[in-house]
C-alpha cells in the first residue's frame, strides 16, 4: 500500500464539477481515495493550480511515420538534445523528439495520457514498441481504416454489420483504441497518385464515396459501443475553400450517443479555409464554429499552428505530396497495402507569410468562437501545427486578448483583413483550459469511465500541479507567467507516484497501453470467415497468423471491453 | 594485368555465410570471377591461382570464368578475400569503395589461404572449430 496526500491544492476538476476549490487529495495505490492512512507522505501544493493529468487526444508521437520523421531529419534531432542525467536517458529532437524526449517533455508539462493519432494496422507492432519506450504516459492508438479494402467492400455492399465486424477484428488484432479515418477514400486513391476532392467523389475501383465510408463507420462504431467515436481527419486538408468539405462532413454526423459526440473532427484549423487559391485564402472559422455550436454530436480539436519550424506527418499521403509541390523541401511517402498511406515533409510557419498568419488566427478563433469548451480541445496535431511544447503559449493566447494584440503587431499586417480574430475579445479562464486540456478529452475518448481526466474517488491518481496561483494572477495581464507555469509543473503525479518535479523527470516510469475490445457474436468473428481469410492471404504480404500484435508488446496492456449490439 | 575489382552478394556466398569455416564458403569467397578473354591473355584456366594486388593488400585467389563481365573487370563476392584488397577510405561517407578497387593480377602457384590464415595475417589467432 502506497499512500500520498496532496494538501492545499487549488483544484479544478470539471468532470467532478469542481471549479476552483482549495482541497486535499488523498491517494492510495495509484487511485484517488477518500482518506489516506496517517503518516502518508505529504505534498504541499501551496494553493497552486491543480488539474487532473493532461490528456492529449490527438498527437503523433509513436510509430512508423513518426520514426521516419526522425530518421530523415538529423537537423531536427540536433535541434533538441539533452544528455543523460539521473534517471533521464539521452533525448534528441525538437519537433519529432525521440520517444523518451516526447515522454519527458509531456511529463514535465503535466500530461499523463496521450493518444497517437494514426496507427496503420499492418505496422501496429511498431507503434506498440514505441509506446513501451514512452514510459510516462498511458498510450492509446487511433487505428486507420480510411483506405481499408475490406471496409470499402462492406460499404459498397451497404453492410454496416460487416464493417463493424472488420473493425472489431482489427482493433483486437492490432490492439487499437478507436477508428480513425484520415482523408477517407483519399489514401486509397493515392495508391494511383490520385485523391478525392469532396465527400461525394468516388474512390477509384471501389466505387464508394467518403460520405458513405464516414456514415457507415459512425454506425459501425456505435454498433460496437466503442468508448470513443469515429475520429476523422476530413478530406481536402489544407486546401483553400475546404471549409465546405468540413461542413459537409459535419452534416453527415447523426446524434447516436448520449455520453459523447458521434464524430470527432481533428485539427479543424487545417480544414477551415475559405477562398480558392493561396492568394485569397481566408478564415471560415465562424462558419465552422456555428456548425459545431448547433450540433452537440460533434467535437473537434483545434489543430493550432504556431510560428517556427516543425515537421508535418500524416496518413494523408496525397496532402503531403501537395505540400511538397509547394515547399520543394524533402518529401517522404509511405503507402500501406490494403489500408492507408502516409507522408512527411518539414515546414516552417513564418510570421511574414500571410497564409501562415491566417492559419494561426483560425485555430485560435475556433477555440474562442465555439461556445462550449467541451466541444473544442486544445491540440496542435503535434507536430503538424507545432510541437506540443507550444501548448503553454497557446493557452496564454487564449487567456489574454492583450497577448493576442501584441502578436498582431508582429505578424503580416494584412492578416486582419482575412480573419475575425482581432474582433473577438473573449478570454478563456482556468476552468475552460482545464476542460480543453483534459476533461473534454476524457469525455470525448470515453475514458472517464476508467478513471481518466478527473479526480473523483476511484479515479487514477494522475495529477498536474502547476506553479500558478489563480488567486494572485490575472491571466489577461500576466500571460508570461501563465506560459511559464504551464510549461513546467511543480509536480506531475502518475498513478499516485511523483514522476516529474519542477521540470525534472524523477522516475523511469512504466505506462499502460489502453485498447478497445468489442465482443461480437460468433457469426461476426472474421477468423472464421472463409472469404475474409482468403482475401487476406491473397493480397497482404504478411500471413494472417503473423499479423496480430502479440500480448508481449503490451506489457501493461489494459482493454476497455464492450458488448457489440450486432 | 590491371583490372577493376567489383564485389557483391552471390547466392552461394549467402548460402554459406553462416558457415564461414566450410570449404564451400571458402570456394565461393576466394573465387576471382573473370572475363574469358582476360583469362586467355593471362594464360590461366578455371581453377588456376592468381595473386591479386591492390594498394591495400594482396591475396591469392582462384580464377573462374563467367559470362556477363566485360574485360577489365573482375568480380569477387563480398567477404574476407575481397576485403583484403579494399581500402578503408570512405571519403566522408562511412562507405569504402567496395566496388571500384584497382588491382593487378598475376598467375601464381602459391596456395589460396584459408580464412583463418587471412585473419591470422591481420593479427588474429586462429580458432579451430
Amino acid at each position, binding site marked *: 500500500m502506497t499512500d500520498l496526500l496532496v494538501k492545499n491544492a487549488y483544484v479544478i476538476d470539471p468532470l467532478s464539477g469542481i471549479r476552483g476549490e482549495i482541497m486535499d487529495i488523498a491517494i492510495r495505490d495509484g487511485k484517488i481515495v477518500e482518506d489516506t492512512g496517517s503518516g502518508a507522505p505529504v505534498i504541499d501544493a501551496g494553493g497552486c493550480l491543480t488539474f487532473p493529468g493532461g490528456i492529449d487526444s490527438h498527437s503523433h508521437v509513436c510509430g512508423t511515420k513518426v*520514426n521516419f520523421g526522425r*530518421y530523415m531529419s*538529423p537537423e531536427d*534531432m540536433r535541434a533538441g*538534445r539533452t544528455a*543523460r542525467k539521473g534517471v533521464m*536517458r*539521452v533525448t*534528441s529532437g525538437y519537433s519529432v523528439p525521440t520517444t523518451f524526449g516526447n515522454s519527458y517533455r509531456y511529463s514535465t508539462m503535466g500530461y499523463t495520457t496521450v493518444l497517437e493519432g494514426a496507427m496503420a494496422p499492418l505496422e501496429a*507492432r511498431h507503434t506498440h514498441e514505441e509506446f513501451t*519506450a514512452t514510459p510516462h504516459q498511458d498510450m492509446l492508438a487511433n487505428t486507420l481504416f480510411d483506405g481499408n479494402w475490406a471496409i470499402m467492400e462492406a460499404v459498397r455492399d451497404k453492410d454496416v454489420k460487416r464493417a463493424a465486424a472488420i473493425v472489431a477484428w482489427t482493433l483486437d488484432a492490432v490492439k487499437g483504441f478507436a477508428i480513425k479515418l484520415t482523408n477517407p477514400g483519399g489514401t486509397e486513391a*493515392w*495508391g494511383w*497518385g490520385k485523391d478525392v476532392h469532396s465527400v461525394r467523389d468516388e474512390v477509384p*475501383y471501389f466505387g464508394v464515396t467518403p460520405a458513405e465510408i464516414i456514415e457507415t463507420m459512425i454506425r459501425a462504431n456505435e454498433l460496437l459501443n466503442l468508448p470513443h467515436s469515429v475520429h476523422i481527419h476530413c478530406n481536402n486538408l489544407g486546401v483553400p475553400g475546404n471549409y465546405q468539405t468540413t461542413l459537409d462532413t459535419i452534416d453527415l454526423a447523426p446524434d447516436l450517443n448520449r455520453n459523447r459526440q458521434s464524430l470527432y473532427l481533428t485539427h479543424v484549423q487545417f480544414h477551415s479555409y475559405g477562398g480558392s487559391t493561396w492568394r485569397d485564402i481566408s478564415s471560415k472559422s465562424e462558419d465552422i464554429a456555428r456548425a459545431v455550436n448547433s450540433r452537440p454530436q460533434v467535437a473537434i480539436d483545434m489543430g493550432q499552428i504556431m510560428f517556427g519550424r516543425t515537421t508535418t506527418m500524416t496518413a494523408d499521403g496525397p496532402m503531403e505530396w501537395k505540400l*511538397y509541390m509547394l515547399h520543394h523541401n*524533402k*518529401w517522404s511517402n*509511405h*503507402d*500501406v*497495402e*490494403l489500408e492507408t498511406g502516409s507522408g512527411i515533409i518539414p515546414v516552417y510557419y513564418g510570421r511574414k507569410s500571410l497564409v501562415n498568419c491566417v492559419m494561426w488566427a483560425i485555430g485560435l478563433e475556433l477555440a474562442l468562437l465555439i461556445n462550449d469548451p467541451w466541444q473544442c480541445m486544445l491540440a496542435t496535431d503535434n507536430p503538424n501545427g507545432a510541437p506540443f511544447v507550444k501548448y503553454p503559449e497557446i493557452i496564454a493566447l487564449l487567456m489574454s486578448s492583450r497577448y493576442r494584440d501584441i502578436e498582431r503587431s508582429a505578424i503580416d499586417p494584412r492578416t486582419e483583413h482575412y480573419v475575425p480574430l482581432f474582433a473577438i475579445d473573449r478570454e478563456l479562464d482556468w476552468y475552460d483550459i482545464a476542460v480543453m486540456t483534459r476533461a473534454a478529452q476524457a469525455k470525448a475518448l470515453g475514458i472517464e469511465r476508467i478513471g481518466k481526466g478527473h479526480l473523483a474517488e476511484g479515479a487514477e491518481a494522475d495529477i498536474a500541479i502547476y506553479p500558478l496561483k489563480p488567486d494572485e494572477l490575472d491571466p489577461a495581464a500576466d500571460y508570461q507567467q501563465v506560459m511559464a507555469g504551464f510549461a513546467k509543473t511543480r509536480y506531475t503525479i502518475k498513478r499516485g507516484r511523483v514522476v516529474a518535479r519542477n521540470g525534472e523527470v524523477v522516475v523511469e516510469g512504466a505506462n499502460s497501453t489502453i485498447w478497445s475490445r468489442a465482443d461480437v457474436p460468433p457469426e461476426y468473428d472474421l477468423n472464421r470467415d472463409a472469404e475474409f481469410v482468403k482475401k487476406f492471404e491473397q493480397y497482404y*504480404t504478411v*500471413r494472417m*497468423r*503473423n499479423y496480430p500484435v*502479440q500480448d508481449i508488446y503490451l506489457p501493461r496492456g489494459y482493454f476497455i471491453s464492450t458488448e457489440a449490439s450486432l | 594485368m590491371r583490372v577493376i575489382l*567489383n564485389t*557483391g*552478394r552471390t*547466392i552461394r556466398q*549467402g*548460402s554459406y*555465410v*553462416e*558457415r*564461414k*569455416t566450410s570449404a564451400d564458403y571458402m570456394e565461393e569467397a576466394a573465387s576471382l570471377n573473370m572475363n574469358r578473354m582476360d583469362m586467355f591473355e593471362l594464360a590461366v584456366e578455371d581453377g588456376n591461382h592468381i595473386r591479386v594486388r591492390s594498394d*591495400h593488400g594482396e591475396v591469392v585467389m582462384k580464377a573462374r570464368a563467367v*559470362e*556477363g563481365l*566485360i574485360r577489365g*573487370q573482375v568480380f569477387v563476392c563480398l567477404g*574476407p578475400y575481397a*576485403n583484403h584488397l*579494399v581500402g578503408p577510405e*570512405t571519403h566522408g561517407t*562511412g*562507405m569504402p569503395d*567496395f*566496388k*571500384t578497387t584497382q588491382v593487378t593480377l598475376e598467375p601464381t602457384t602459391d596456395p589460396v589461404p584459408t*580464412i583463418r590464415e587471412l*585473419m591470422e595475417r*591481420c*593479427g*588474429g589467432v*586462429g*580458432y579451430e572449430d
Partner: protein
Amino acid sequence: MKIEDVVCTFCGCLCDDLVVEVENNRVCSVENGCTLANEKFMRDHRLKNPIRRDGNGWKAVSYDEAIRETAEILLDADRPLLYGWSGTHGEAQSVGVHLAELIGGVIDNTSTVCHGPSIMAIQEVGHPGCTLGQVKNRADVIVYWGANPIDAHPRHMSRYTTYADGFFIENAFRDRKVIVADVRQTESSAIADEFLKIDRGGDYAALSALRAIVRGKGDLIPSRVAGVTREQLFRVAEICMKAKFGAIFFGLGLTMSPGKYKNIRNAIELTQELNRHTKFTISPMRGHWNVYGSNEVFTWITGYPYAIDFARGIAFYNPGETTSVDILMRGECDACLVVASDPGAHFPRACAEHLARIPTVQIDPHVNATTHLATLQIPVAVTGIDAEGTAYRMDGVPIRARKLFTGSYPNDQEILEKIFARVKEAKRS
C-alpha cells in the same frame, strides 16, 4: 512437429510463409524457403560454448566468466565501439543502445557498409516509398537498379514483384514490365524487358539523363550516356511515365559505387519527378533480415539510424566520422563489442587489423572470420530458430520472428542485459 507461417530470418524480404519441421531440437525440413533459407535452417552449425583467447590458442569459458569479462572490457575502454546488430531482434538491439549510452560509446549497425549512403540521401531529399504489398497489388512497372535480387533476395520477385500476382495485376508475368540497370549482367538482368547496361561509375549520369527526359529536357541528351543509348533512355523513361504504378528497387550497386549517396539522391529525385506524371515509389533492398530494425530501434531511442556517438553525453551523429570503418581506420576505438555480424569478413583489411589489436568481444552463434580476431566469443541462440523477437522487413513492416524450439543457448537480449546490469552496477559503486 510441423510449424507453419515461420519467419525466415535471413534477408530483408523477411518471408513469413515457411513451413518448417522440427525434430529433436533440429530443423529437418523447410518448405517455401529459397536456397538461402534452406541453408540457414537446415545446416545450422554453432559454436558450442563461450571461448576466450589464451595466448596463441583458445579455451572454453563459462557464460558467467565471459559476461564478467565483457563488462570489464567495456568499463575499461575509453572509446568503445558497439557494432553489428542487424542479425538480432529488436529487443536485443534496444539493450545495445542503452548500453552504448551508459558507457558513452559509439553504436553502429551494418547499414554503415550497406545502405548507410541511402540513409544519407534520404536525409537530404526524403523517401517516397511504400510497403511491398502495395507493389505486389498495383505495380505494372518494376525497376531494379544496382540490385541483383535473384542472388541477394531470391524470393523478392516471386513474393512481391515480377512473378507475384496481385489485386490489380492478375497475371504479373504478363502485365508487368521489368527494367534492370546494372554495370554487369546478372541472372536478374537476364529476365528484364529492358536492361540498361551502365558503364562502371555511370549510374549518376544515367539517372540524370532519365530525370532530364522526364522533365521534358530530352533534347539535351547526347547519343550515349554512360554506355546507354539515347533511344533506350527515352524508351525507359516512356515506360516509366506511362506506368500506372511504378516501383524502383535499388541495391548496393548504387550505394557502394562512386558517387555513393549522391547516386541515391539522384534516384530519389527521379522518383519524385516521376510522381508529377504518375505514381512511383522507390525502396532500398535492405540486406540482412533485421538491419532495418536496427535503424528503427536506434532512431526511436537516439534520433539517428546508425553511427551514434555518445561520448559527449548527448547523441551525436556524423557519418564519415562516427561510422565504424572510419573509427577503425583511424585506430580510434580501444575496445569493440560485435553483435550479430562479421566485420572480420566484411570490413576492409585495415579495420580487421585494428580489431585484432584491441579487445574485441563477439556475441554470435557461429564461428566466422571475426572469431579469429576476437578475444572472446559468446555463442547465442539464433533468432527465428531458437529465439524469438521483433524484426522489421525492408519496407518497415514489423514481424515477430518465431522460436521453433527451446534450445540450450541464451539469446542476445539475455546476454546483453546481463552485461548491462554488471556495467551499471560497477558505474554506481
